[in-house]
């Protein structure tokens, strides 16, 4: 379940980031604080983006920062970050990025269902409208819980 990977503290609304590297760091902070990932995981996410280009920008305005399990993952989790001002990752098709879903996964299978739920969410325009207008984290988490309940 996607909702079981997201703690309320992992949702960050209207946060500032100076550039794409900063945006990745910011999006990973709640997972670092909660002990889901090691510091090395954040460096790896940035390294991968530097090496292969901004492939983590997976859809219009959406980035999914992530790295392999062996880069420093303690537990499977995901954070949701909405930037106050969007940043450019250098992805000609999907820039600029305003929403970041930072993912940590311990293996490549156990969170398959959760990712299917995330794909559904990313196709849901109402979800993005909510992210833009939400007054608090609870609203966002409740939406995710309800949406995935009805799947």
């Amino acid at each position, binding site marked *: 379940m996607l909702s079981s990977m997201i703690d309320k503290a992992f949702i960050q609304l209207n946060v500032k980031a100076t550039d794409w590297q900063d945006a990745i760091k910011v999006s990973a902070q709640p997972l670092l604080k909660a002990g889901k990932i090691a510091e090395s995981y954040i460096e790896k996410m940035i390294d*991968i983006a530097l*090496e*292969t*280009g*901004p*492939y*983590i920008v*997976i*859809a*219009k305005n*959406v980035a*999914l920062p*992530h*790295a*392999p*399990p062996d*880069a420093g993952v303690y537990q499977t989790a995901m954070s949701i970050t909405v930037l106050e001002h969007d940043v450019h990752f250098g*992805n000609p*098709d*999907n820039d600029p990025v305003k929403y970041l879903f930072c*993912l940590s*996964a311990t*293996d*490549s299978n156990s*969170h*398959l269902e959760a*990712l*299917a739920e*995330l*794909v559904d969410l*990313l*196709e849901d325009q109402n979800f993005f409208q909510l992210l833009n207008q939400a007054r608090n984290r609870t609203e966002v988490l409740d939406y995710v819980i309800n949406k995935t309940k009805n799947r």
Partner: protein
Amino acid sequence: MYKALVACRAGVGSSLMLKIKTQQVIKEESFPIELEHASLDAVSSFNGELLITLVDVANELKASGIKKDIIGITSITNKAEIKEKLAAYIEKNT
């Protein structure tokens, strides 16, 4: 039946989501394609004919001289794009 590998750098995030989406399209359109997913490390040992990745990774693979068909997808949530590119591949190979 074609065998395709969906790959990304980590093998845990975007490739899985791309696989989920591509699988939906294949099912809806009844395309004769069988999907696997893995990280890029598995590309060299993959014995199928088609690689499906996000577009930047696709460009990198093409530049590395891999002799397989490569489809690069721009947006994971854009089913129309996935459908169009898979259809073009099948068309070209039949």
